[in-house]
């Protein structure tokens, strides 16, 4: 499904819960509207209906998980918007526009390897849950890096069960293996029959793209992040440079957020 065809609508949803799961990091739970299907990798533009003056634009957030009748978004208080949202009381009305964008494609690979840096972990719960359901024989691996232990997400039993293996890394060595998640992949870049998924900060994805290209890995999908004002192709703010021009840029909201890393000028 292309982004332009996604069945987007404007939903007004009241905050059901905000649950802290790591330093500055929280699950935002909203009631799942009836009859709205959202696929792993889809995103939503979320803004408070009664916004404070300091928050004007909506923010794009990938769907984190769909569970027990709730849309769950994994947010980290990195800017004034996400900091404000963390303090929202249950019942706070949010404007939720979506689902938007181009979601993950589900491949038939035997191994699905998700590589997450920091809050880039967000889209992989819904992706793993969908793969569990539609590719029950596939192996699902998560490699997840943070700068330090305090930032590492606590997974509950249900979330832990979505993955056949979870490897954790910290740059300062306070939890799991010391180093970046890229270091942690080690010799496994050349593994055959793997679908790769990446989400995280730009330097991490750039490095991951380079290593995957060197290993001639053909099946990789990255979920990227950009500043957006609208989320559906009008504001033209979310340009990402293409490796082969023309066109020089793509709009990440329509031709993303999930991209083939080989198509991007890193």
């Amino acid at each position, binding site marked *: 499904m292309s982004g332009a065809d996604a069945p987007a609508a*404007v939903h007004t949803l009241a905050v059901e819960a905000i649950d802290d799961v790591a330093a500055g990091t929280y699950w935002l739970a909203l009631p799942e509207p009836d009859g709205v299907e959202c696929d792993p990798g889809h995103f939503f533009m979320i803004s408070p209906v009664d916004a404070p003056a300091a928050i*004007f634009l909506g923010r794009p957030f990938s769907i984190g998980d769909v569970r027990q009748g709730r849309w769950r978004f994994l947010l980290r208080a990195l800017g004034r918007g996400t900091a404000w949202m963390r303090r929202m009381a249950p019942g706070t009305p949010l404007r939720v526009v979506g689902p938007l964008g181009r979601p993950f494609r589900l491949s038939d690979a035997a191994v699905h390897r998700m590589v997450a840096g920091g809050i880039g972990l967000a889209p992989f719960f819904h992706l793993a849950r969908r793969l569990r359901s539609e590719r029950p024989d596939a192996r699902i691996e998560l490699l997840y890096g943070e700068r330090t232990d305090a930032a590492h997400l606590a997974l509950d039993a249900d979330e832990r069960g979505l993955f056949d293996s979870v490897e954790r890394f910290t740059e300062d060595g306070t939890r799991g293996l010391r180093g970046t998640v890229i270091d942690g992949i080690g010799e496994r870049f050349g593994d055959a029959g793997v679908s790769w998924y990446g989400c995280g900060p730009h330097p991490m994805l750039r490095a991951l793209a380079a290593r995957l290209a060197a290993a001639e890995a053909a099946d990789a999908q990255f979920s990227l992040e950009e500043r957006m004002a609208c989320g*559906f192709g009008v504001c033209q703010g979310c340009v990402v440079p293409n490796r082969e021009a023309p066109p020089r840029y793509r709009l990440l909201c329509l031709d993303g957020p999930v991209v083939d890393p080989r198509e991007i000028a890193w």
Partner: protein
Amino acid sequence: MVRTGTGRPEPGPLATVCGPLELANPVLAASGTFGYGDAFERFWPLDTLGGFVTKTLFLAPREGNPPIRIAETKAGMLNSIGLANVGWDAFVAEKAVRVNESRGSARMLVNIAGNAPSEFREIAARVEADREVVRPDAVEVNVSCPNVEEGGTNIGCHLDQFRETVRGVRDATSLPLFVKLSPNVADVVPFAACAAEEGADGVSLINTLYGMRIDVERRRPVLGTGSGGLSGPAILPVGIHWVYRVRAALPDLPILGIGGIASWEDAVQYLLAGAQAVQVGTAAFVDPEACPKIIAGLERYCASAETTVAALVGAAHRGGELAEAPVWTG
């Protein structure tokens, strides 16, 4: 009365006439915030609107500025999109015919620009040549463009280049003509007067204000181009000020009011200041249903106040004293 649209507006309390434009309601979607008329159809039907203005079209396609292109501000945003557009030919071939099938009574204004006054004239001539295919109800000229023949000065900020540009477009097409005015000048009124002298049928005001945000951690401007255009509720009082001033100075010049409209009350302020209709832009990024909500709000207001849009236009000037008051100079 020029009638080039595809349907006749239903008469009602929201109907309004802005010079040559008969509108079913006074809400238009503003240029640069509505694509080519096709962007919001997933949310609501196009004929909900009184009209819409296309993204600025050049003769040749443009890829636009390098990122970062947008930055949030308090009650607004900065943009530095760089007038990215598909170019006139692609608009005609891929957009115009399809939009005409769905727009009903919604008026379509094609917004045009060029890299120099001569290019404005060229694209206006193309609009004229293609008018039977495209069926625009009017042309809106975006003069807030750098003039490559004059070292990149902003055409909309220099009266001589502004006059040359409007004159060229007026010569090239007989379509109804609106000129979109920049607020980045000491006084907008002489530009409005100039547009009228050169045969424009009306003016659209205001365009975005120059602005900049600086990232205090990186110690450099947030936008890739440094500065950008400020839009959103932050600029509402600026737009109302200039609409009021232009109306007072040129009471017969039709006005499309623009700048920071996010609610029906904002739209009513523009009507009272003297605009016959308004354009809504940035607010629709945040709430894609902003335009239908504003129209619904105007319907409720007109019903409860037993008034019409036409009766509101310029009403803040009546009594004379306000219109005669000196301009505040700080």
